[in-house]
């Protein structure tokens, strides 16, 4: 039972990890993008449309599907959709200097609405079960490596993509000039601006890339985890991804462990259900991630170390003429 839980949790880490890595990258630029749940939904919508278009292009004959286009087309559509919504968030908050909270929450309403809308429009007409097989297809030799292979290597490619991206983002943020410039923008845009770093470019690039990464979370959930069914609960994972950003104190490599922990907690309820005296306790287990996140938020603010604080200008719009 324990191995089964860990195996599933490792796979399920992907949805949280994509979301939290994307949001961390975004927040490092000083944009508190509360639209991330909506962007995950919107990216997923793009992927669904992409796959649908591909299925139409080959004449609706799913037996003719090939792995490469069946994977790449939805991912590209996802990047296009999620990136566009991220760019739109920037247009409103950076260029038009609107309130970030207001804009983000509206994006969430919109994105969630769009996915549900397409669930209604497309859901019955298209099936993605066949396409999903390409996503879940694991390595052939995984089963021969005993339990390690089963737990860590038997999954579709997306979880590995998620881990690779988060390590890459962690590296870029910490070790490269680009990453340091980005962090400078998030900490103090006026200083960064004075030092010749373009605040606008950094915010746009970070937010758009972050949105694309987060969108992959939605794609993973639909095409890998659910086997091609369009869900209506991505929003909840989006909020948890924001929680993970706090939990991992804005470090994508810690985010891997945090996402794994959150995934385990999410799945735990169905594994421990037989041992509970009543089903209501399962709801308390689901509460743990949020409570733990609050505790982390409190502890880091009490300890007040520079390394564990949110980016100093998080949530504020920057206007050069306003000093």
């Amino acid at each position, binding site marked *: 039972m324990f191995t089964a839980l860990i195996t599933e949790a490792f796979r399920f880490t992907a949805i949280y990890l994509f979301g939290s890595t994307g949001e961390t990258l975004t927040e490092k630029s000083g944009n508190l993008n509360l639209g991330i749940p909506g962007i995950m939904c919107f990216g997923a919508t793009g992927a669904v449309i992409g796959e649908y278009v591909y299925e139409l292009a080959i004449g609706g004959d799913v037996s003719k599907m090939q792995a490469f286009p069946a994977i790449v087309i939805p991912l590209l559509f996802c990047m296009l959709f999620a990136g566009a919504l991220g760019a739109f968030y920037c247009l409103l908050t950076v260029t038009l200097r609107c309130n970030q909270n207001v804009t983000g929450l509206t994006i969430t309403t919109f994105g969630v609405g769009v996915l549900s809308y397409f669930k209604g429009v497309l859901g019955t007409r298209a099936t993605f079960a066949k396409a999903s097989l390409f996503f879940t297809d694991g390595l052939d030799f995984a089963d021969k490596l005993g339990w390690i292979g089963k737990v860590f290597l038997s999954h579709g490619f997306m979880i590995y993509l998620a881990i690779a991206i988060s390590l890459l983002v962690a590296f870029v943020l910490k070790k490269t000039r680009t990453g340091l410039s980005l962090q400078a923008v998030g900490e103090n845009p006026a200083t960064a601006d004075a030092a010749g770093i373009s605040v606008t470019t950094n915010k746009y690039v970070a937010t758009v890339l972050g949105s694309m990464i987060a969108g992959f979370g939605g794609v993973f959930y639909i095409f890998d985890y659910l086997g091609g069914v369009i869900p209506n609960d991505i929003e909840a994972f989006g*909020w948890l991804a924001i929680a993970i950003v706090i939990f991992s104190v804005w470090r994508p490599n810690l985010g891997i462990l945090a996402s794994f922990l959150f995934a385990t907690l999410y799945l735990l309820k169905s594994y421990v259900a037989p041992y509970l005296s009543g*089903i209501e306790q399962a709801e308390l287990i689901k509460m743990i991630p*949020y409570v733990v996140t609050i505790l982390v938020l409190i502890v880091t603010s009490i300890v007040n170390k520079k390394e564990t604080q949110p980016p100093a200008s998080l949530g504020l719009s920057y206007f050069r003429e306003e000093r």
Partner: protein
Amino acid sequence: MADTTKKNPLVRISKRSDIKGWKAMGIRAIAFVIALLIVGVVSTATVGGDIIKIYTTLFIGNLMTQRTVWALLESIAFLLLVSLAVTPAFKMRFWNIGAEGQTLMGVLGAAMIVNYLGGKIPEPALLLLMFATSIIFAAVWAVVPALFKAYFNTNETLFTLMMNYVAIQLVKFFIQAWSGKGNTGSKDFNYGYLPKIGGNEYLLGILIVVVITVLVTIYLKRSKHGYELSVVGESENTARYIGINVKAVIIRTMILSGVLCGVLGFILFGKSANLYETAAGGRGFTAILVSWLAKFNPIYMVGTSSLVAFLQSGAKRAGDLYSAGKFFTDLTVGIFFFCIIASEFFINYTVKFRKKTQKIISEVAIEEKVEEVNE
């Protein structure tokens, strides 16, 4: 020598504060029309709906019968109440996005009293206890982030956001715990209904909100407390300098926010005597937009909450025309919000484009000087 003929930027943005009222309304009206057009295009492109039918339903759908008009007034009142609740905190620049959870805790408070005392004590006493518990629950939910903000400067946006989900899980827990096995997400009670004034189920709630609107307006504009919190919002250092106890102001203001959310929680429960996890209905989030659009002014807020509630319920009726149902609502409302948000930019800033063959005179003079020096 490097490029000395530096161009002016193509677009220049500068702040303005002197826009005329009619002009601002004009910009908003244009945004509204653009939103309408986008909604029309999106809905015809996806479901191929009859565009005229969608528009008429969007506007007149709310006003068809006496009942729908009352329902509309009520949803305006509820949205206004949450908006009033978050406003004092926003004026203080405390970003409380936890009104959703605070309202839900208010609902839970009322449900808790009814669950344990319903039918055992007289109705007036029950209602009074429900009211008190609602307020206490919601205020506790609001004051916890405030305490940490005041003493440790904990990020309140993220804290209040997380508190929403703790509240939702808590409500789910109690629904399951009280209703036993085989339950699907809501718990009905037989007691705790609000009294109806003259047989009208909507009137009492609306009247309560009217009274609260007046009180909050006076509090913010005429009381010492109201003045203090706006000073804290403008500059914490100034507030400290003139002897305002900033910590006390933060805590006091958030208790007020919580109390107002608690009142709504009480009313929401009293309408249907039913506990479910989405009882707050997303109003806590929408209220942020409403309050911000009204520039944190309670009087303007009557207008903005009317507009938003009108759109929401109109879009819901338009969505009911198609199988897409409720989701059409979110889509439509999202598009309208985007356009309204963007229009605020054009009200607060002016955009000037570079003129074609323009060179500012002083700049030409400087360039001539530079050339002289170089020679």
